[in-house]
């Protein structure tokens, strides 16, 4: 299990801080210290296969939807961030693996602040753009402004994607340990622009290699506690999947795109590991398309009222395609200092609809 090198020092410092705090804490210092070692009968090494599951219930989620909807209407939308937080807490809380559920720690207040900042930035940019446009009459300059605007837009989307992922991960935990995303905005911009540029120059043939690189970056910068996930997919494999998928998509007038998407996603999952644990995915295009259609039909036939049940069914299906297998010593995983990222990226992502 490889630690991220630059993180090791930070990690040991963080551990020291925690030790010191524990020593100073009167509650733990006194007569009843928390036993430091695991109770002997408690096994910390898990070995085997664990299925991800979603045990949410339509009726309960429906209650949350309704309550959120009503409060949103009554507060003219101000309640939106709290509604989002409540919904995410439910989704995470209902997702389990190895008998423990996930937890979302984000709060409505955080997300409201994030959303507010995003609105300010976007409104300011839009006003600035309109202002600049109204004084420019030169065609050449006009074109330049357009390019600049597109560039700023691109940067904002990157901020939104990286920021949202950092925020989400830092607010997600399993058995008390937080996830983290250590990817930086700068690296992401570099990676994405390079990928798009090369894809363009190679008439698209580089694109699958870019996807692979991106997946590698996105995965290996994500950690659970102090240990990062790893990705061992190969560009040439992704290329094969992509080439076959693209050709078949053209022949089937796009219907095969579902299979292409499923094949890529399945490949990405299956090449993701955490220590000696590997993710296994049984996500196949046919089943995925079928479940998506059922979701859609459910929502249409019930005029949206059945949305909650449709979501539960879909989540049960999707998480049901994922399992983990291998061996892991839980005692080796250490909590890391969470970078308490703000929710600005998350707020921005609400506008751009990005989730990478």
């Amino acid at each position, binding site marked *: 299990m490889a630690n991220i090198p630059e993180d090791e020092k930070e990690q040991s410092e963080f551990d020291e801080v925690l030790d010191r705090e524990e020593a100073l804490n009167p*509650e*733990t210092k006194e007569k009843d210290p928390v036993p430091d070692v695991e109770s002997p009968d408690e096994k910390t090494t898990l070995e085997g296969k664990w299925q991800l599951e979603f045990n949410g219930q339509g009726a309960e989620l429906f209650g949350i939807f309704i309550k959120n*909807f009503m409060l949103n209407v009554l507060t003219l939308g101000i309640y939106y961030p709290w509604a989002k937080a409540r919904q995410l807490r439910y989704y995470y809380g209902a997702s389990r693996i190895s008998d423990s559920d996930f937890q979302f720690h984000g709060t409505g207040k955080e997300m409201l602040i994030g959303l507010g900042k995003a609105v300010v930035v976007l409104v300011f940019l839009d006003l600035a753009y309109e202002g600049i446009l109204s004084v420019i009459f030169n065609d050449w300059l006009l074109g330049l402004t357009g390019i600049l605007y597109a560039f700023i837009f691109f940067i904002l989307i990157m901020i939104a994607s990286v920021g949202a992922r950092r925020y989400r991960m830092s607010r997600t935990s399993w058995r008390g340990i937080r996830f983290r995303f250590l990817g930086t905005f700068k690296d992401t911009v570099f990676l994405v622009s390079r990928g798009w540029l090369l894809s363009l120059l190679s008439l698209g043939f580089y694109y699958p290699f870019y996807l692979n690189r991106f997946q590698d970056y996105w995965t290996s910068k994500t950690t659970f506690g102090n240990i990062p996930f790893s990705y061992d997919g190969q560009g040439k494999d992704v290329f094969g999947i992509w080439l076959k998928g693209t050709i078949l998509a053209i022949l089937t007038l796009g219907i095969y795109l579902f299979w292409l998407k499923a094949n890529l996603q399945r490949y990405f999952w299956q090449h993701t590991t955490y220590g000696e644990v590997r993710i296994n995915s049984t996500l196949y295009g046919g089943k995925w398309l079928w479940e998506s259609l059922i979701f859609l039909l459910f929502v249409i036939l019930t005029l949206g009222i059945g949305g909650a049940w449709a979501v539960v069914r879909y989540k049960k299906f999707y998480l049901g395609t994922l399992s983990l297998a291998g061996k892991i010593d839980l005692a080796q995983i250490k909590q890391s200092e969470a970078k308490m990222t703000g929710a600005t990226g998350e707020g921005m992502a609400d506008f751009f609809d990005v989730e990478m």
Partner: protein
Amino acid sequence: MSKTWQAQYFDGRTPTHQSVTVSSDTRGVRIKFEDGSGRFWHKADFRLQQDLQQGPVRLEYGEFPPETLVVDDPEFGLNFGKSLSNGNRLFTPILALLTIIIFPTLIYWGIPSASGLLARFVPLSIEQQLGKYVIEEVFPSRIVCKTNAGKQALEKLVSRLVPLDSEYVFQVEVVDSDLVNAIAFPGGNILIFRGLLEKSPSADAVAGVLAHEMQHVFQRHGTENLLNQVALSGLFKLLTVEVNAIAETLFAGVRTLSLLKYTRELETEADALALQLLLQAKVDSAEMLAMFQALKSHSSSLSESLSAHPDMSARLKRLETLIAQNPAYLSEPILSPQSWKALQNICQIVN
């Protein structure tokens, strides 16, 4: 006597757990580890969380990283009077019922009524700016026809239709295009497309269309439409908290259909009110019918719910009934045959 619960204790430093027994009293919870040691958490010092009704109940203690106690039995939460399940059990059905009533009511009645009301309070100057903005956005490079004779005929036509007490100053333009249509913008701008003049059986028929478009302006339908759009988008944004792309597409569909429905209602209203303008101006309303009959052959064959305009046959029938209800009056042709010819040829520049 106090009941005990089995729980998992996480120290917040590794994902391993210890099995513990928990009991609670009015001051807080007592945790007993398997080796016999124990802890006491004061009520004020921990946070209680329960994401799902069926549990687990979670207690978090201390700053990051918090120690966590996970009790699977949701009944444990009742000790702290904060259980989600109790409140929700009553709350949800009531809210559900309300939503089932409120949501369709909002879409079918609330939004159009509110927009209609609000549109009345928008100042004329803002409407005019809005209209100009939309016109420039939608038809930036339109070619406006303006032969002198044609313009004079158009002015004559407009001035006879506009009531004396009108607060709107109408700017009617004929656009050089084959479209058989006319369109009104907030504030008093109206575009008539050349195709409509060519297909029109008479000047009175054009007056019928113009009266219809003028009523859109008088009734502030454009502004109302815009407010409808804003309100609907807001409503659906609220509904689509964290749903997937498919659902969003679906909601977009419902939104579009609702908008089209609003538009159709506005069209029907404009039809009915146009007859009053024709009556005041003493223009033959039968010609408006003739115009619609001519338009019928050009209208699309979309079913009514997918169209911005009411179904032509139904529209004709409604109009016939309305005309029959109106008192009979003596009509005068709105333009002389020469003026009508000039108007029809407004796009032909004579050297």
